């Protein structure tokens, strides 16, 4: 498909956070660069993995792309239904109608769910905000998506605290999927699931991708999951992309020392294969 345009084109994306002084009045004394000069293109229907060191800027990068954070520098060109737009330049008001086309599944399921809203309300809320559905039809859609992620109609009226970690994570997934967005950024979104439920959710994501040509950015620590679902992978360390390749190339021919160290630290489910991680030295 040589004529297809990227759905997302990220150029020179950087994000700096202020560092404050000690004391009661916290003054800004310096900046911390959490994301430094990240570039990538994403084709419609593609799945991009972002892996890397804890604290390397994966979540920050993902949040900047969807404008949950304001980038300090760079462009985020998104092919919306009405043509290309640089998300980095848009106001909150201009972004609002675009929000239904791009959804984020957050890393920390508990703090991203409103404790005072039932599961039914939580999953229905974005549909109501964007006036996409209501009443009995909406309820039916909510139940249907909950069932697809392995929850049930009987859970509708429960509050988040009454769920297990993995169940809460699935509520967040259902809330994003119900919108049928064209771009989904999933931050560690299957990490709290046992491998069998995880398999069910991954199969669902892949089915939806096939049906609606969804595009995914998948931030994950579990490299076996990344290997299974991603077409391409970015490896991040200290705010920078240190390696970017197709998935099969990355796993068969890792070039950067950090990538090698990462691949060597995947524990095998066979107790007779001991873990022998290679340390990474700069």
């Amino acid at each position, binding site marked *: 498909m040589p004529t297809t345009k990227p759905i997302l084109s990220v150029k020179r994306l950087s994000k700096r956070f202020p560092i404050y002084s000690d004391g009661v009045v916290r003054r800004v004394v310096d900046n911390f660069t959490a994301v430094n000069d990240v570039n990538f293109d994403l084709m419609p229907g593609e799945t991009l993995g972002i892996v890397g060191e804890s604290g390397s800027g994966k979540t920050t990068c993902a949040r900047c792309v969807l404008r949950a954070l304001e980038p300090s520098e760079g462009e985020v060109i998104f092919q919306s239904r009405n043509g290309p737009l640089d998300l980095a330049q848009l106001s909150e008001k201009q972004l609002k109608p675009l929000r239904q086309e791009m959804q984020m599944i957050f890393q920390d399921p*508990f703090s991203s769910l409103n404790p005072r809203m039932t599961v039914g309300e939580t999953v229905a809320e974005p549909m109501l905000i964007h006036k996409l559905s209501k009443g009995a039809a909406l309820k039916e859609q909510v139940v249907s998506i909950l069932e697809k992620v392995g929850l049930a109609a009987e859970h509708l009226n429960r509050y988040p605290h*009454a769920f*297990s970690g993995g169940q809460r994570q699935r509520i967040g997934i259902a809330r994003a999927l119900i919108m049928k967005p064209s771009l989904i950024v999933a931050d560690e979104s299957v*990490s709290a699931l046992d491998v069998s439920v995880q398999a069910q959710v991954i199969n669902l994501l892949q089915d939806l991708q096939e049906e609606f040509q969804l595009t995914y950015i998948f931030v994950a*620590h579990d490299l076996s*999951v990344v290997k299974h679902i991603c077409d391409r992978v970015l490896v991040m360390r200290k705010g920078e992309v240190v390696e970017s390749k197709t998935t099969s190339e990355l796993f068969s021919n890792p070039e950067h020392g950090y990538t090698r160290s*990462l691949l060597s*630290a995947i524990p095998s489910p066979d107790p007779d294969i001991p873990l022998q991680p290679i340390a990474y030295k700069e």
Partner: protein
Amino acid sequence: MPNPNENALSIRELSVTFDSEDGAFEAVRNVSYDVPRGKVLAVVGESGSGKSVTANAILGLIQAPGRVSNGQILFYPKKGNPVDITTLSEKDDLLFKIRGGKIGMIFQEPMTALSPVHSIGNQLCEALFLHKSVDKKEAERVAIEMLEKVGITDPATRLKQYPHEFSGGMRQRVVIAMALICEPEIIIADEPTTALDVTIQAQILTLLSKLQKETGTSVIFITHDLGVVAQIADDVAVMYKGRIVEKGSVRQVLKDPLHPYTKALLAAIPSQKNLGARLPTIDSVLGDTDISTHTELIEIGAGRSVALAPEEAARHSK
């Protein structure tokens, strides 16, 4: 309460029930397991099967509408008499000493265990002040040392920051540091490494193994990652729908799984075998096999148990 096997903790026929308008829901059903002193027991199983609720019960943290509806949780401290934690009331001084002191908990969701309005340093020192007699300077020194051990670079600066300024994995490591800082006899680690990249995960696993060898700490390790189980556990308990369906040594359970659910779990790991294909789920592996009746945990060898259907169980017990 005799303790023939040198256990640090023994759960006996524990049930936990949540009451609601729609009736009572038994989240934990007749669960028994032992945690031998200085050993690591991994608890794996279905999402929602009762792993965290069992862990909360060990710390006396089940709150209404939940209640411990049956069973005992016997804690055998290194010094002093055994205690049944289920009999302690919220006001009991002993429960306070156990919670966060003798038994350290690494909670599944770091943000629920951290206060958003206190600095990381204050929270780590607070844990020390509660359970150890140390002054501020000493507490800070220990806090910095602990952050360093869990792989946080530049710990002295990081101490002054707040949870929202940390990444997911860094928060998780703070929670790990908080659980370890009081040198507990038992560590309950609920999904402690899911937010960590594999190199830092390896570092945390090494740290836990070291502590466990040096100080004889016992660990209950709740995880979905069967690779992590293979690396760190001595024994494994598998939970499914509130029950334990299989128990044994790590080698027995991972290399020779007996219960259909355990087999399904192992089949669902994404691997070279199923690359590019749909992943097998529990339903697709089980097919028409109905495991809802496989509920009677039968001991089939030393330390090895599996839940069988009643007719099979009856055959075994003859």
